[in-house]
């Protein structure tokens, strides 16, 4: 393999740029991590402690932010009074369900589009992705009408279907790239070995596993973080975490502690998912792009 060393020479300009980039990184770190930090810390404070903030500019008084007795009441309340257990379950079912449907249908469609040649293939591919070009809001009203007349509003299958309509085109496009990179000769060899077409397809699935893994994450994230579909299509029977969290903001009383706790409950599973398939995610998102 060729050397990948990036050659750098010292120069005054470079030193200045280096200093600036370190400054930027510090700022960026605070910018991204501080909100998360405040969210986690505040979720363990009661309402009074949560508003103990230092005066602006008074750096010596930073300690008051940490001067509190940790309490788990917000979490307990969320899961006992506010039924967050159910919403967590709904969120998981809707996002994982949609990911499963999108990936299984998407991989088959992508495989077909990758292997078969037919007239209008390019147009078909473009049409598939063009369904993602309209903003969700634009299609929401007609979609709602269709879903309502089919009795899908307020149900988990309805929500899964709604997410799948948006994930599937994306799945087909990403996965097609992965299948394109698997030499067809491998399937031909498999057929000569005694595989049917279907068995040959299944045989090469491990070769696109990084793509499938990366795509499952993207699908899950889309469903997990979605608010618009969840409020409109999922409202009622299929309430998910983001919607439930928003409902904690009531006209008379904004329950900051519980909102923060809900934020943590919503964030943690996705962080674990990210850590779990971080390796795949990077390999997956870049692998389709570069032909070896």
């Amino acid at each position, binding site marked *: 393999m060729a050397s990948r060393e990036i050659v750098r020479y010292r120069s005054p300009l470079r030193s200045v740029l280096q200093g600036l980039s370190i400054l930027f990184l510090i700022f960026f770190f605070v910018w991204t991590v501080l909100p998360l930090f405040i969210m986690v810390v505040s979720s363990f404070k009661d309402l009074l402690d949560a508003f103990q903030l230092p005066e602006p500019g008074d750096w010596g008084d930073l300690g008051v932010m940490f001067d509190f007795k940790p309490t788990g009441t917000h979490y307990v309340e969320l899961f006992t009074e506010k039924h967050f257990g159910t919403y967590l379950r709904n969120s998981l079912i809707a996002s994982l369900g949609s990911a499963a449907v999108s990936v299984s249908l998407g991989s088959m469609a992508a495989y077909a589009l990758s292997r078969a040649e037919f007239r209008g293939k390019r147009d078909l591919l473009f049409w598939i992705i063009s369904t993602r070009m309209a903003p969700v809001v634009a299609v929401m009203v007609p979609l709602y009408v269709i879903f309502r007349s089919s009795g899908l509003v307020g149900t988990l299958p309805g929500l899964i279907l709604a997410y799948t309509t948006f994930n599937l085109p994306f799945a087909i496009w990403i996965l097609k790239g992965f299948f394109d990179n698997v030499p067809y000769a491998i399937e031909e*060899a498999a057929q*000569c070995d005694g595989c*049917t*077409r279907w068995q040959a397809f299944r045989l090469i699935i491990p070769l696109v596993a990084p793509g499938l893994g990366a795509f499952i994450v993207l699908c899950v994230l889309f469903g997990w973080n979605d608010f618009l579909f969840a409020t409109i299509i999922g409202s009622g029977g299929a309430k998910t975490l983001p919607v439930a969290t928003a409902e904690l903001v009531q006209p008379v009383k904004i329950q900051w502690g519980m909102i923060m706790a809900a934020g943590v409950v919503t964030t943690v599973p996705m962080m674990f998912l990210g850590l779990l398939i971080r390796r795949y995610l990077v390999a997956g998102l870049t692998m389709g792009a570069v032909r070896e």
Partner: protein
Amino acid sequence: MATVTISDVWKYYGKTMAVKELNLEIQNNEFMCILGPSGCGKSSTLRMLAGLEFISSGDIYFDDVRVNDLPPRDRDIAMVFENYALYPHKTVYENMANPLKLRRTPKDEIERRVRRAAEILEIDPLLGRKPVELSGGQKQRTAIGRAIVREPKVFLFDEPIAHLDAKLRSHMRGELKHLQRDLETTTVYVTHDQLEGMSMADRIAVMHEGVLQQLGTPEEIYNRPSNEFVAGFVGEPPMNFLDCTLEQTNVGLTVVHAGFRLSLSEEQASLLSGSGAEANMRIGIRPDNLAIEPGADGTLDVPGEIFVTEPLGGDMIVEVTIGGDRVMVKTKIGPMGGPGDPCRIGFDVDKLHVFDINTGVAYF
């Protein structure tokens, strides 16, 4: 073990013709080589035999069974691909075991057969490795191993050793030939390398632009090429071609070129006169059938001028200009002089080939 019959087979890709009216019978246990340049239709033919491509028209039979409509898995063939096509996520052992597993062979039988094939191919220490950890030669052995673990009716080889380096290629030629004799299985071997065809095959089918040019043993193909294409394709260095005219003189039929005159034998003359050959024609002579001596006053007939010499160790190839045309001469290495030096050339007239200047068909 099977006889393979290709009967009136055509292959089109859209409007492009890849194979034209091919008729070929491959005997039981025969090693048949389909030889030709890229795009000659040889791979298409092999892929139609494998069932990886549809036959546009015509029939293919394995023994007496018409296989046109059978998918690859039902044809009982084993194919080795040019780029090996191993399963990258499986080990060498799993790669080789796959065909057996698909046929529900008992586990201990799989183990026994894979180990046996690995031993034959000398890859038994590699069974636990993945294809990325293998060299080109090892990958190719694994691919062959995957083919020989079971006993298929027909082996199909699609340029299996084209990507190996020269030394390994010459080694594998011998091994493959030995293996085929050992396994006694009908084999179709596709290659563009005439050396592979000549050295391994029982019979060679030379194809060009989708058309079968000649079918014969390596000896027949080399010594009695049916046309100019076959003559030029087979043999290294390639045959020399020179445009000449025919003259009837008092010593018989004579080939006349700007640089020389050659009298044909009576037998050769009779072959020409009966066939309606025209005055203009093309002669072909292999570099091995030309003799050369350095200097202007040797005993050989034809004067020439050295263009360049290419020593090859034991032999050398001398390019010589004769009457405005250039020919290659193969000779034992020795002092020959440099570019521009005079030399003399001798033709072995018995080994001369004569082709129709328009159609390229060989008279002899």
